């Protein structure tokens, strides 16, 4: 249905292996959320958060009030607390107008099981993060 969203999804690595009708189903499963600059998207220590994929704009990762890193188009966040049942360890705050797709946390696991190629892409990205964090230590 939302063609614009489907086109944008097709360009993201996370969903790069999906065929058109599957992309359309993804576009219908996720909700679109738009945040103004300065609005918080995920909150450190607060339960019940969602999984987000950035379609447009920039966000900052803030831990205990300190800015740690920046996120942009195609980046995603919230998957760790969604998959482990914990609370987010960081605030995610919109730095510019931020357009995201969101999926409630409890729905991420069934979604990944239904879309194994998305799960693989996510696993690769998590593996890269782990490698990079080891390299830094």
């Amino acid at each position, binding site marked *: *249905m*939302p*063609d*614009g*969203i489907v086109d944008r999804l097709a360009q993201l690595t996370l969903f790069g292996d999906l*065929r058109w*009708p*599957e992309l*359309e*189903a993804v*576009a*219908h*499963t996720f909700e*679109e*959320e*738009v*945040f*103004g*600059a300065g*609005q*918080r998207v995920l*909150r450190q*220590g*607060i*339960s*019940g*958060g*969602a999984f987000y994929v950035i379609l447009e704009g920039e966000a900052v990762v803030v831990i205990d009030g300190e800015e740690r890193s920046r996120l942009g188009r195609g980046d995603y966040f919230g998957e760790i607390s969604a998959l482990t049942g914990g*609370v987010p360890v960081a605030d995610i705050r919109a730095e510019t*107008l931020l*357009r995201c797709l*969101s*999926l*409630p*946390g*409890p*729905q991420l696991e069934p979604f990944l099981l239904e879309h194994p190629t998305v799960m693989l892409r996510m696993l690769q990205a998590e593996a890269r993060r782990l490698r990079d964090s080891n390299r830094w230590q």
Partner: protein
Amino acid sequence: MTGRPFPPGDYDVVVVGSGPGGLQTSYFLGRLGVRHAVLSADDGPGGMFRRFPLFERLISWTHSTADVPLSSREFEAHDQNSLIADEPELRALVPTVLEEGRRRPAREEMETSLRTFAERAEITVRYGSSWRSTRQDGDRLVLATDDGEYRCRAAVLAIGMTEPWVPEIPGLELAHHYVHVENRPGRYRDRRVIIVGKRNSAFEVGEGVVRQGVRELTLVSPRPPDLGRLARSPLRPWYLTPYDEHVRGAPGRYVLNASVERVERIGDAYRVHTLDPTRVEPIVLEADDVIAATGFEAPLRDLAELGVATVLEGRLPALTPYFESVTVPGVYFAGNVTQAALGLRKHGVASVSSMVCGFRYNARILARHLAESLTGTREERPPVPAERVVPYLLAELDRAPELAMQKGYLARVLSAPAGDLRDEGILPLEVFVDGEVDGVAATLEFDADEEIRPVLYVRRGGLLREAVLPPHPLRRYDALAYREALDDLLGPLLRG
């Protein structure tokens, strides 16, 4: 045109719309003494309830009797459909017009109750005056109407989300949108009907045509029906009948999870091409009627050109917690468009700001916010003595209609900027959680298992803590266990 109220000119606030959102906002602005004009394209009050819903009664409840007086604040939890007010004669108007034995109002009953509210509250509206376009002029917004220009410091657009929206699917423009469906007896008798969509309006019109004796009914859209959400909603008994018949194998009743590729006209009939991602072969459907129950959009006119950021392909504005455009200051929204203010959405649970029982409270919050930000005056935040804090919050969790209706979205907030606790009133939870002031917010939330739980957010020394309390089978939060939990949580804050 002489004698019509609110001639073009300069106002502090201009409210556009005379549905429940516009009336409720004007009522509270009036109570707070904010000079404002109300404009409406219609020729009388009622908004969407002048036209919708087409077939069925509303899905929200109004009980005619309860263990509390109809004029009490507590009764609001028994009546999701009346506007709210401070005066007893303006409260609980829907029960007074509801047909005996019913607990969900019909469209006409909603329209009557809103007209009664407008008359009794003496809400003045300039009817027959359409807002056409918008521009900025220094610190003023200028709304152009058929009658001339209105300059204001803040515009409150209570314009509903009732314009038909049709996705860009080739040929779908040949279909009738929900808003153009005729509720004429026999119109769909013995017809094959395809409904594109699987949300409220799709199930409503589906059940409506089934009652007319439709021969074959197919609901199709990519997303499966959200049964979890529907199970919690009063939609279930009526709207879900076509789905129920489909899963039990009734002939000629189908609910497909497939994307619609295109719609063709073949003589007097239609051919609808669909693709189910779990199947290789496309499914081609034939029908005598195709109805697009594909949703609605807010008529935002030229606001996107003014810079108002939107969501869902321009269907709704993106809003701050105080219902203001995230990109254009001074452009506010009331009524069901406030559903675009998301709140925390914990566990994916949305506000009920799309319904009267949600946005009536949003209107009170918006009016106070406007009164304070435009005039600089501040409504008193009464002090709450330390020994009263816990019983007060427990009583609010027990009985506050705002918390019962807007779960996880509205909260009772007490601030403690300098140790003494003050009652900030009912606010969007997000305002407290994302703010910096020490204090406490009490709310009711659905958890991941859809159980209702009291949740406290306590900030002390700038550090925020969330405390999710256990559910109670009778939802009574004045029990000893809750009192002890709150004593523990709030002790440090209360002792300063």
